[in-house]
């Protein structure tokens, strides 16, 4: 994985892990890798810059 750009939190199973852009696209296409739930943009949050 290249540098993580987002944190994924599954809306159904609550599994969470960091992803890069390619993984983000894959999750939006394929759904949660753990439970299969559909994934939308809102489930992937970019880190907050302080």
């Amino acid at each position, binding site marked *: 994985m290249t540098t993580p750009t987002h944190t994924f939190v599954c809306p159904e199973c609550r*599994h969470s892990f960091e992803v890069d852009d390619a993984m983000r696209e894959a999750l939006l296409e394929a759904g949660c890798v753990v439970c299969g739930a559909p994934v939308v943009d809102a489930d992937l949050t970019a880190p907050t810059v302080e």
Partner: protein
Amino acid sequence: MTTKREAEMSASAIDAFLARHETGVLSLARDDAPYAIPISYGYDEDTREAFLRLVSTVDSEKREFLGSDPDARLVVYEEDGEDYASVVAVGTLERVDPAELTPERIAQYGETRRPLFEIWADGKPDLDIQLYRLAPDRLTGRTVTVDRDEGE
């Protein structure tokens, strides 16, 4: 009932068969104790690997058998009139760490149906869903056509 015709499946026929189906029976063993469960899977014809999501609880029998990378067999079969077909995949069942996922792996699990046979009564956050990969050391398949009327 007698066998009219019997044949080994080609590698491409095995791949197509496994890709067409989505459920099978996973068999594990520990010492002399067998353990077999119906499971859902996804199959990648390019890498010839099966991908599974398995749900278990801390005290479950399944968890005991899953242990650390157990030897496993996946059996997928179908029956259509007088025609039977089955594929057996033999290999090691490896746990996949979500922290080591790749876009390709996410896509492969996207082909895997949710565990149809699992109990989802509990809320998902309470379930321990683990990812597994079966890269078979041996993949065999056979088709059999029987004559049901023979001998009656």
